[in-house]
């Protein structure tokens, strides 16, 4: 399958219908610059995404975008964090091997000396009921866009 990102970049991706369960007790942490390019990722991020640290640093965060995620969800994310506020949401992420993992994500703007310098995101294990609800919601949102 071919995926095209908001900046016009595109790549061939493989999709595998297999969920990798979120590990208990871990937090996935990453930081980006103001355009969403990854500047920092912790070990849990590396393990869950399937990419090496070298592959992640310097890459846009959209590398994790799963085609099942509606564009509107990310529109809301960017509107919220650009206005200086904290964003929460449930995200289905694409791994390098094509499998997926669900997270509850929080993103906050990093303010240094009054200036926005980037963003920090921390993900935690989502509840099953939220994953089920978001699976339906996102499928509906994607259908609404298509019709």
């Amino acid at each position, binding site marked *: 399958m071919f995926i095209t990102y908001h900046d016009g970049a595109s790549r061939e991706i493989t999709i595998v219908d297999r969920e990798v369960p979120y590990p*208990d007790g871990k937090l996935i942490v990453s930081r980006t610059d103001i355009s969403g390019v990854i500047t920092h990722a912790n070990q849990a991020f590396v393990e869950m995404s399937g990419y090496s640290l070298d592959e992640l640093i310097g890459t846009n965060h959209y590398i994790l975008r799963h085609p099942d995620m509606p564009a509107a969800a990310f529109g809301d994310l960017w509107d919220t964090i650009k206005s200086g506020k904290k964003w929460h949401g449930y995200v289905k992420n694409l791994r390098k091997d094509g499998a997926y993992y669900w997270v*509850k994500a929080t993103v906050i703007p990093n303010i240094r000396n009054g200036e926005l310098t980037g963003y920090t995101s921390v993900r*935690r294990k989502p*509840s099953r009921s939220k994953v089920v609800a978001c699976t339906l919601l996102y499928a509906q949102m994607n259908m609404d866009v298509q019709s």
Partner: protein
Amino acid sequence: METYTLSVSPDFAPEYLSGWFIFNTWLQKSLETPFHLEIYDDFEAQRRDIQLDKIDLIYANSYDAAMLVREKGFQAVARPAHVSDETVIAVANSSNFDSVDDLVPWCRVASTHDPDVHMMGMIMLESADLDSSNVVVTSAQTYVLVAKYLLNGDADVGFFLKDSFQDLSDLIRSQMRVLVESQIGVIHHTLLAGPKVQHLVPEMLDRLLLMQNTTKGKDVLDSMQMTGWLKMEGEDTDFMIDLIDTLME
């Protein structure tokens, strides 16, 4: 000469406190400045004194550290090397629960006033659709009391600082099972300097970083169960605060 006040978060098991008294003596000699170590049994009393600007140097958990930097003008100086603060959720051996996802609404949680452990414990319950609106939290003064709540059947799950859980007696610990243990790695205690002792920070930092290289310094570190200190750069502090911000409700 003014005597400054050093304090430590009340989340410490009493057996570590002797190490902090030894550290206080070492600090006074190293800086040729009088310090008094003030110990608190509970977080509320310590917070009150923080608000009254009675504490100048403090070894605090990261949740309190974020508040001290933001609201009280403290500067993070150093953090212990090779350690992080992790949270354990445990049940009594006889419990019917085998994992967090088995937990049900209105289950009874025993916790302390330790803010970062409580926060992490609540985060780890979220995957079972539990939050402060549908669990019953009982606050205990110490981790030993959290264990007692579990063993007496007065609570279903207990939140522990991992180090404190491991320091419980074998007799108590052997009657409990761990449901989940955090593996975060980036949350840790920090030594912070308040506005009145900013002028001492450069020298203090030099001494702290060299501690493990001297016999005397190493003895002091041993008594605190530490291997050494790492410098907290400005960006390390900002990152710590950002992390706490993402985790707070």
